């Protein structure tokens, strides 16, 4: 845009490029290293550390400053010039910093966690590539590039989820993740194409930036028209499409968000993605993968009409509620966390839907820290359980929380950070989660105020969901860290030497735990509006301080949460009241994850497989049959012509030859040196002459 970039701006751009390029470079280096090389981990960690430092510099330079946008002509098709460049505004620098900041502890943690893996350097290759894709995704200014990196994020997550590809479940899981993401990719691609058709540019800044042409476009009289009074529209022509395309574009974006951020119809890949290494789960769940969907929403926000925002809110709300109910009964440590991620992502989408744009992104940032931390904690626990399993030659599922318990004495540091992260996830005061989640809830209530009573369902459901969150987090922590070590009850002669692990484990979790507390985000632990992040993101709303919800909601949430916590404590630690019935309909519904996987299997997978089989049959019998028929016909023709050649053509030649031969033989006899023959032929000729004479 600006030809005369100031010196600092140029530096910032170079820093951004370098921050994006370092992980890519690390991935390339690691790719060339031997598979077991231990250097790989430090290459990647160093690259992400540099990226993190540079991102911090960029963040400091751009946050709350005018946005920075540089671009160059990438390619030209006809009269359309497609630009490629970097767009740095509050949203992208926040994400840039967040991604590199979350990725750094995960990298350090991974160097220890993957230490004994056979394909150590491959793991870091993929991990660095993953970070590169995500970092690039957040800074590009162009929808085509955005789509490219969006695909790369999906692809590298595919590699990482299926990292232990010798396990059948991992292969199934990464296939599932990939297919689900493809569905979303199709949506995103069609949305991009429709946007291009209407606005003739891929430029994100132009489309959704300060002078957003998407926001200025009008849906009138059944047509979607790009605003023609924009003087910076090169040819001054306005383009229009039937209005239905606006909804199609929205549906595409919705699909893309649902797939990437695991929202309701397409969420089932995320729990299965737990088959990857735990450190990868932690990265996927925190910053690099699922955040992309919410980030996309943040980027294209001006596009949505009020109805569409309501749809978003409903989708997010339903996902949040459903995932929370599922998380209540799961026994797999990572699966509980996966559903809690889905639930929290639901909150973010809900936040976007109800206009809590900044709260939603705020929640994205806070959630990244505590969810990353929870997964790293889960990784430590699972790691130690695996050690127990290996040392004692037992066979049990190291992720089953029913076998854990009482680990707070054995893993004290892990216990403390898990408590911090858990409280942040519940959203109790003094944690970051309190600030961001209550922001969403309050704004959801404010949003539903001026509307029909039915709209109240959404914030109320969200409220219930946050209580459910409190319950499942409490259940998880009580089951894992309190009570007796149930595995020891089953196998009394267990040899145990559990530890929190080396500094590669301890430093990342402690750092992340500090980031889960309020001071990082706001100096006032009770008011989200004072958070610098919230202020920086606020694009449209003027926060209403006078609303009564600001008092009621946090109090309500936290009091009931405390009650719920005590309830969980009573059930799982004191075992005063009996646990819930494990046969009821709701239990089964929740335990079987709302039967969604089963329904998908029945409704989609089976028909698709059936269709595949039918097509295979069709291909084999009809298409191949036709080809074979043709082949047979050609064979017949060939055989016929071979026969003709052999018997007719060759036969004729042979006949000629035989005739010539017999004539030759016949004629030869006259010259055979046989006197009597000469005589005989003379006689015959004379007789013939006589006969000839007599007849004529």
């Amino acid at each position, binding site marked *: 845009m600006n030809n005369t970039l100031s010196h600092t701006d140029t530096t910032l751009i170079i820093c951004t490029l370098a921050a994006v390029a370092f992980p890519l470079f690390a991935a390339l280096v690691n790719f060339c290293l031997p598979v077991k090389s231990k250097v790989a981990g430090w290459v990647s960690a160093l690259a992400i550390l540099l990226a993190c430092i540079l991102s911090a510099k960029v963040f400091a330079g751009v946050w709350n400053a005018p946005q920075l946008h540089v671009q160059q002509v990438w390619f030209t098709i006809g009269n359309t010039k497609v630009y490629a460049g970097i767009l740095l505004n509050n949203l992208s620098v926040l994400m840039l910093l967040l991604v590199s900041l979350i990725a750094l502890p995960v990298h350090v943690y991974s160097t220890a966690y993957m230490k004994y893996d056979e394909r150590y350097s491959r793991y870091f290759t993929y991990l660095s590539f993953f970070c590169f894709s995500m970092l690039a995704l957040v800074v590009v200014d162009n929808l085509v590039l955005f789509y490219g990196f969006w695909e790369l994020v999906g692809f590298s997550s595919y590699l990482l989820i299926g990292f232990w590809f010798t396990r059948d479940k991992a292969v199934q899981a990464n296939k599932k993740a990939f297919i689900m993401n493809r569905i979303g990719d199709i949506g995103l691609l069609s949305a991009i194409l429709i946007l291009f058709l209407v606005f003739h540019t891929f430029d994100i800044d132009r489309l959704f930036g300060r002078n957003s042409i998407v926001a200025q476009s009008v849906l009138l009289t059944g047509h979607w028209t790009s605003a023609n009074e924009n003087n910076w529209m090169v040819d001054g022509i306005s383009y229009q499409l039937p209005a239905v395309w606006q909804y199609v574009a929205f549906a595409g974006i919705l699909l893309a968000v649902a797939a990437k951020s695991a929202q309701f119809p397409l969420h089932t890949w995320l729990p299965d993605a737990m088959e990857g290494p735990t450190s990868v789960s932690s990265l996927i769940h925190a910053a690099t993968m699922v955040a992309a969907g919410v980030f996309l929403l943040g980027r294209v926000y001006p596009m949505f009409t009020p109805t569409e925002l309501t749809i978003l809110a409903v989708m997010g709300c339903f996902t949040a509620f459903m995932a929370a109910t599922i998380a209540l009964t799961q026994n797999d440590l990572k699966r509980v966390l996966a559903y809690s991620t889905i639930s929290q992502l639901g909150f973010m989408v809900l936040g976007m839907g109800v206009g809590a744009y900044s709260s939603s992104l705020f929640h994205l940032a806070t959630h990244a820290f505590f969810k990353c931390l929870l997964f790293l904690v889960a990784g430590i626990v699972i790691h130690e359980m695996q050690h127990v399993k290996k040392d004692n030659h037992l066979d049990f599922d190291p992720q089953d929380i029913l076998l854990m318990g009482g680990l707070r004495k054995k893993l004290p540091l892990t216990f403390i950070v898990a408590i911090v992260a858990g409280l942040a996830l519940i959203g109790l005061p003094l944690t970051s989660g309190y600030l961001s989640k209550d922001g969403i809830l309050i704004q959801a209530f404010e949003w539903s105020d001026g509307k029909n009573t039915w709209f109240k369902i959404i914030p109320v459901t969200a409220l219930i969901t946050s209580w459910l969150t409190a319950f499942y987090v409490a259940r998880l922590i009580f089951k894992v860290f309190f009570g007796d070590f149930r595995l020891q009850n089953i196998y009394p002669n267990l040899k145990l030497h559990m530890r929190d692990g080396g500094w590669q484990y301890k430093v990342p979790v402690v750092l992340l735990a500090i980031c889960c507390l309020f001071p990082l985000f706001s100096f006032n632990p009770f008011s989200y509006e004072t958070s610098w992040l919230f202020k920086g993101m606020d694009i449209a709303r003027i926060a209403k301080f006078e609303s009564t919800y600001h008092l009621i909601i946090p109090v309500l949430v936290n009091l009931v949460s405390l009650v719920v916590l005590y309830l969980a404590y009573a059930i799982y630690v004191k075992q005063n009241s009996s646990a819930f019935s494990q046969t009821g309909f709701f239990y089964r519904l929740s335990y079987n994850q709302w039967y969604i996987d089963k329904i998908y299997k029945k409704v989609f997978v089976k028909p698709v497989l059936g269709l595949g089989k039918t097509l295979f049959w069709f291909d084999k019998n009809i298409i191949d049959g036709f080809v074979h028929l043709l082949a047979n016909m050609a064979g017949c023709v060939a055989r016929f012509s071979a026969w003709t050649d052999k018997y007719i053509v060759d036969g004729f030649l042979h006949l000629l030859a035989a005739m010539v031969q017999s004539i030759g033989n016949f004629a030869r006899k006259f010259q*055979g*040196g*046989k*006197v*009597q023959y000469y*005589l*005989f032929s003379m*006689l015959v000729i004379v007789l013939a002459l006589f006969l000839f004479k007599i007849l004529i």
Partner: protein
Amino acid sequence: MITLTDFLIVSAALFCIGLYMIISKRNAIQILIGIELILNAAILNLVAFGKHDAVNNSGQIFALFAIVLAAATTAVALAIILNVYRKYKTIDPDKINNLKDQ
């Protein structure tokens, strides 16, 4: 009464027998016999026609000459056959197809 035709028929028969022998036999002596038969057919003709000649017995005389000549040729032929047999160890005319000196 024996007419000229009867003689001619016998003569023709002799001729044909002789001709057949010459063509078909694999033995030079038999061929020679065939030649003699043909010669005898010709002599028979001379004698038969001599009856109707203006000059008396001229036919018989010619026949006598012919018989003498035939005897001579036969002798020569036999000598040739003998020589041939010495040289080729066969008297089958089909196998004697090499006249050059060895």
